[in-house]
């Protein structure tokens, strides 16, 4: 039970990352690798503010998110104003962030011992509560409910935002930038804003993850782009990508489901060292299989 609740909570926290990846990869069609640096950036800023400066967890979390937005904006500026290939712009910022994160933390790992975090609460007043006949730690259930609230709130706000005039033009920017120019909107500025917003969410996810797992680590961003992409792909398989609301909801669900799958696989004896390989193979097959199926069915149709 503890394992299940833990996996659900991490899945929900990482769904913010998945939403960020959805914005860059799907809405803006921009393969943004900054993600791997900005999730750690959010975690390090939050951790250092909590440990060294004793700020409130809310302030630390917001600061982490702002850090991610700045990182995203830098990638956006490199890509649009300096005409650097999108992938390369992300790689440059990600690489630079590795040093920045070490500088911020002062070492490669900051534990969050004995500091109050967003996950220090217990909303139930008792130590254990009964969930569907199972005894579960009330503290863990609080963490789960809190992350659920965060994920739904962020997805809801994004849904509303992308239906405003500003949000609509940002979606159009990824869909047809020539049209957006002809409608008098600055494609470069929209892209910078979008990548910044996405990395803000990713850093927010990092800040929450650090507080939940009790440490920030320089390596924690490794493989996170593929992780987010896997969540987005699962989400699309679950809900289809037709409408914006379903796509956002699907991404959150995809993140939870993917985390559950990973937890189960590890439980069944998957070597944790192989996890990233498995994730990469999963995403690859999710990208390639539909093409193979399509070409097979086309061939079948010709024979028939």
């Amino acid at each position: 039970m503890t394992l299940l609740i833990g996996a659900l909570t991490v899945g929900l926290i990482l769904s913010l990352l998945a939403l960020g990846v959805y914005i860059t990869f799907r809405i803006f069609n921009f393969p943004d690798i900054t993600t791997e640096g900005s999730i750690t950036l959010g975690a390090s800023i939050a951790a250092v503010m909590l440990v060294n400066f004793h700020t409130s967890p809310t302030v630390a979390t917001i600061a982490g998110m702002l850090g991610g937005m700045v990182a995203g904006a830098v990638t956006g500026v490199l890509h649009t104003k300096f005409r650097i290939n999108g992938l390369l712009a992300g790689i440059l910022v990600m690489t630079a962030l590795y040093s920045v994160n070490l500088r911020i933390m002062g070492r490669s790992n900051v534990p969050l011992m004995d500091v109050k975090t967003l996950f220090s609460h217990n909303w139930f007043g008792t130590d254990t509560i009964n969930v569907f006949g199972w005894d579960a730690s009330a503290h863990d259930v609080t963490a789960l409910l809190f992350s659920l609230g965060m994920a739904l709130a962020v997805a809801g706000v994004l849904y509303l935002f992308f239906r405003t005039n500003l949000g609509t033009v940002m979606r159009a920017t990824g869909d047809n930038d020539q049209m957006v120019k002809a409608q008098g909107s600055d494609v470069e500025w929209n892209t910078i804003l979008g990548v910044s917003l996405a990395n803000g969410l990713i850093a927010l996810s990092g800040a929450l993850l650090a507080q939940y797992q009790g440490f920030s680590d320089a390596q924690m961003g490794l493989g996170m782009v593929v992780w987010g992409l896997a969540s987005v792909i699962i989400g699309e398989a679950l809900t289809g990508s037709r409408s914006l609301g379903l796509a956002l909801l699907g991404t959150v669900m995809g993140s939870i489901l993917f985390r559950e799958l990973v937890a189960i696989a590890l439980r069944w004896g998957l070597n944790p060292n192989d996890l990233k390989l498995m994730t990469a193979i999963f995403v690859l097959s999710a990208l390639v299989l539909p093409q193979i199926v399509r070409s097979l069915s086309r061939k079948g149709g010709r024979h028939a």
Partner: protein
Amino acid sequence: MLELHGIRKTFNAGTVNEVRALQGINLNIEKGSFVVVLGTNGSGKSTLLNAVAGSFFVDEGTISLSGQNITNWKEHQRAKLIGRVFQSPFSGTAPHMSIAENFALAARRGKHRGLSWALSPKLMHNLRDRVATLRMGLENRLDNAMGSLSGGQRQALTLLMATWLEPQLLLLDEHTAALDPKSADQVIRLTEEVVSRDRLTTLMVTHSMQQAVNLGDRLIMMHRGQILHDLRGADKARLRVEDLLSRFEEIRRREQLDESAALMLSERYV
């Protein structure tokens, strides 16, 4: 209204692929006039339109529109004043967004886009009425993705989008060239309707002589980056397709003459 002065543009300057697309264009278009630009492939007619729209900056010369010097304005800044329909039906609309959302974008062309609701009730109300004027039955499909429509439907909607907020200048870049004849006719009829109703200043590029004869109150013929003929008023009204053909034939002969003369000279003296 629209004033072009000494416009020059060379692509790939200094390389073997150098193209001198515009070679000193001077043009003055009055408010409310409908100008048709005709020319062969590579005559620079689309380049002229793109220079006005701001797809690139010109090498020399000035462009002013409604008394403002827009020579150094970027494309999206010029869009405040200019409505545009492209040759490809895919260029003017966002395929994965609904018809209504596409119009929500057009309804704020060149304006500030804030956090107010894109599909406001007021927009939806106007939208249904104005899309109904197309008589394509699209007013009941406003939630459908733009990408699910045919090229003709998309061009008709793009035209409606470009003129949703009355533009100072309407640019039409061979906007029926990619359509089947029936859809092309439909879009041309719609163009006449919209332009005459709102008395829009319009610059239309075409390579259809029939369109050049039937539409507009002024005809400009371009060749090799220069304006060759500029017909207006009674001259334009009297024009028939045969006259245009003979003018093109004349150009062709003159060039052939140039080429054969050059060949003769090179054979004799080189």
